[in-house]
């Protein structure tokens, strides 16, 4: 492989945002057919590097060389036509357009001249792509009606359908569950065989080692290492990423469940889910497993007051409750972390501090007037405890890396002191170290007697962290499994039921 000419070369690339250096003199080469994993902590600069390669950001210093050609001022369209495509970390789809229209957006001329011809071809080609990948979606569905995971699949299909020589994938699997990840793996191996180079990021160790040929580690904007997979171990990579040795990925936790806190009977919303039943004990972590689109998110929303259940009942501390909105749930001590961070998680233009105190602002006021010093103190506490990587509590959250944004959302929910936490994909896009911190936090909370519902598509996470696992399939509860008595295969079989 080394003998071939590289597809992409980075030469001493440096980037700074308003004076703060983000990337330091990066050198990197990619060869045809190579699958290259780019790993690093949240905020290490992975997305920034990818955007630089694509050409959305131009480097302050250094050069990007694609197929031996140094990149000058080219439009994004020209760059993409020269053979690079990218899956962005934040979903980049147009909600009011259909799957087919999104996939061919910006490339309509490939579909023919006449409007009807284009319409027909888009439909046909998309249907073919979906069929090839075993994705049961209708090309005419509007993207706004898709779940986050399904949207991510559409993004992947779009990048693939561009027939690029180099595909940049910024956390392409962050919302996917086991089944789709298997599919994804198949897809990239097919691409590899066609000679396509792939640079991808992920925070899941199985993927990093499972998919890639080479692994490069970024830390604080420096390229620490770049080595063939065979020449390194998980331990080493993690150490290079976080700067210290990490021996375990999940904290030790003693199960000690107490009284029943939340009781759910026959819960349902026609069309979304039905017949959900469980008791949640104090100090318990209850996992929700299932495939993409199974309806777990909707159940979580119904418990947190975002959706109003139409069937069944919720008993909270032995009282029947019906939350009409999230505010009521929060006041009753129910905390909710959404899977849709960007839409439901934070206020982008607000500072870290303002986001952290948003749900508990009434604790920081007197007669409606804010006590800002107390607020600041609290926010600083969260930043240091959760190791949120930010220039300060006044930094706007939209400028934080994805993982750090997630920590801010987590901090906001913890600040209103919930007794039950509903966590929907809480570690989506979070690095190993931060994951460990969040798991530790969960363990600590459960030790304090708080109950947690963990909705997760990450099977190892689900297996390790939950005491019991409720498996949901097509809106129905198919099994309730004890952690000690089950295995991934069993969970999957119930999930497919």
């Amino acid at each position, binding site marked *: 492989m080394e003998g071939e000419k590289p597809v992409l070369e980075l030469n001493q690339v440096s980037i700074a945002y308003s004076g703060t250096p983000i990337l330091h003199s990066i050198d990197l080469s990619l060869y045809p057919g190579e699958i290259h994993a780019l790993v690093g902590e949240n905020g290490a600069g992975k997305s920034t590097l990818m955007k630089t390669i694509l050409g959305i950001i131009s480097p302050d210093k250094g050069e990007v060389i694609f197929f031996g050609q140094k990149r000058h001022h080219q439009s994004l*369209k020209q760059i993409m036509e020269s053979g690079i495509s990218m899956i962005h970390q934040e979903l980049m789809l*147009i909600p*009011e357009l259909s799957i087919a229209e999104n996939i061919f957006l910006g*490339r309509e001329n490939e579909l023919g001249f006449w409007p009807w011809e284009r319409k027909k071809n888009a439909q046909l080609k998309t249907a073919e792509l979906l069929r090839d990948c075993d994705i049961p979606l209708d090309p005419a569905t509007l993207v706004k009606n898709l779940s986050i995971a399904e949207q991510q699949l559409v993004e992947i299909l779009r990048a693939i359908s561009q027939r690029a020589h180099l595909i940049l994938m910024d956390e392409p699997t962050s919302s996917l569950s086991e089944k789709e990840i298997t599919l994804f793996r198949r897809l990239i191996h097919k691409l590899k065989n066609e000679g396509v180079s792939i640079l991808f990021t992920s925070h899941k160790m199985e993927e990093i080692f499972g998919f890639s040929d080479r692994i490069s580690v970024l830390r604080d904007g420096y390229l620490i290492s770049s080595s063939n997979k065979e020449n390194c171990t998980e331990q080493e990579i993690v150490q290079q990423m976080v700067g210290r040795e990490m021996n375990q990925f999940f904290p030790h936790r003693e199960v000690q469940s107490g009284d029943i806190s939340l009781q759910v009977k026959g819960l349902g919303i026609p069309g979304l889910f039905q017949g959900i039943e469980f008791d949640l004990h104090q100090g318990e972590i209850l996992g929700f497993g299932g495939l993409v689109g199974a309806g777990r998110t909707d159940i979580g929303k119904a418990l947190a007051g975002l959706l109003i259940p139409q069937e069944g009942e919720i008993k909270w501390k032995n009282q029947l409750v019906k939350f009409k909105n999230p505010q009521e749930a929060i006041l009753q001590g129910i905390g909710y972390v959404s899977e849709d961070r960007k839409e439901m998680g934070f206020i982008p233009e607000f500072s870290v501090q303002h986001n952290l105190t948003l749900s508990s602002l009434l604790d920081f006021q007197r007669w409606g007037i804010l006590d800002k010093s107390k607020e600041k103190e609290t926010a600083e506490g969260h930043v240091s405890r959760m190791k949120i990587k930010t220039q300060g509590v006044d930094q706007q959250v939209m400028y934080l890396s994805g993982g750090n944004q997630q920590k801010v959302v987590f901090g906001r929910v913890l600040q209103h002191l919930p007794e039950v936490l509903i966590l929907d994909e809480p570690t989506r896009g979070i690095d190993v170290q931060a994951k460990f911190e969040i798991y530790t936090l969960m363990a600590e909370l459960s030790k304090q007697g708080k109950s947690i519902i963990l909705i997760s598509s990450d099977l190892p996470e689900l297996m390790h962290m939950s005491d019991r696992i409720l498996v949901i399939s097509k809106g129905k509860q198919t099994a309730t499994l004890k952690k000690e008595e089950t295995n991934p295969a069993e969970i999957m079989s119930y999930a497919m039921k």
Partner: protein
Amino acid sequence: MNLKKILIGSQSGGIFLALILMCVLISSLTPRFLTDTNLLVILNQVSVNAILAFGVTFVIISGGIDLSLGSMLAVAGVVAALFAKSDGGNVYMALLMALGVGALMGAMNGFTVILSKVPPFIVTLGTMTIARGAALIISSGRPVSDLSESFNYLGNGDLMGVPIPIIILVGTYLVCHFVLTQTVFGRYVTAIGGNETAAWVAGIPVAKVKWWVYTLSGIFAALGGILLSARINTGQPNAGLGFELDAIAAVIIGGTSTRGGKGSMTGTLLGVLFIGVINNGLDLLNVSAYWQQVVMGGIIILAVVLDSVYQKMKR
């Protein structure tokens, strides 16, 4: 397009129903409403607003707004009149110059919006004031009259019994509908309104498309100005005061989202007709001038509220 599709399948079902209801209501109150001549009168009357509304539909779908419509209309109307004087004027020249001036003003709007990232609300508000001043300056503050017969024909003549403004109305509707739904340009406009960053990342020439959108809006305003001047046989420097609000109201009533990314020309047409029918009906029913305003505002709010309820029920 069949009825069921309009009612259920499209975003315009609610306003379509509201329009029908309104027509039934008015004709039950006065027999003068549902006559051939009156319906022609309504179509004739809405033509200018419709043309402006079609143009600004593109702008609104792209996530922008254009408050300078009425003033651009005035400038173009005056320019057209100046070139279409009965002594030595030339209609083709008049059309060309007016449309050119409209395109130029629209292009300036687009240019400023794109380059400076200043919100279009304030850019076009500025243009609204500037263009109004310009219309007054080039006409020395006086109506420009004595226009050639062939120019006036545009506003008052007919082709095989169908008044020219109505022909232009239908023509622009068809063209705009086609452009929005069937062309790459239309797709791009929708995409930009839906998620500008995503559109940009997909390689869409966002700046160029936006520029065109504002330019088109200027051209349509100019077309409206030509028609208006021809209809009243005069180029009026203070024509079109407040027309932008009527046009935007029609677009929103027609179901186009104020945030962009979603909308249809059929909806806009229905919105325009809705406003036109109410205006006409209130006059026919001899509702007193002050109450007309109250009723007009009330009906519009009611219609959009019912529409939003209807859209929710459809789900």
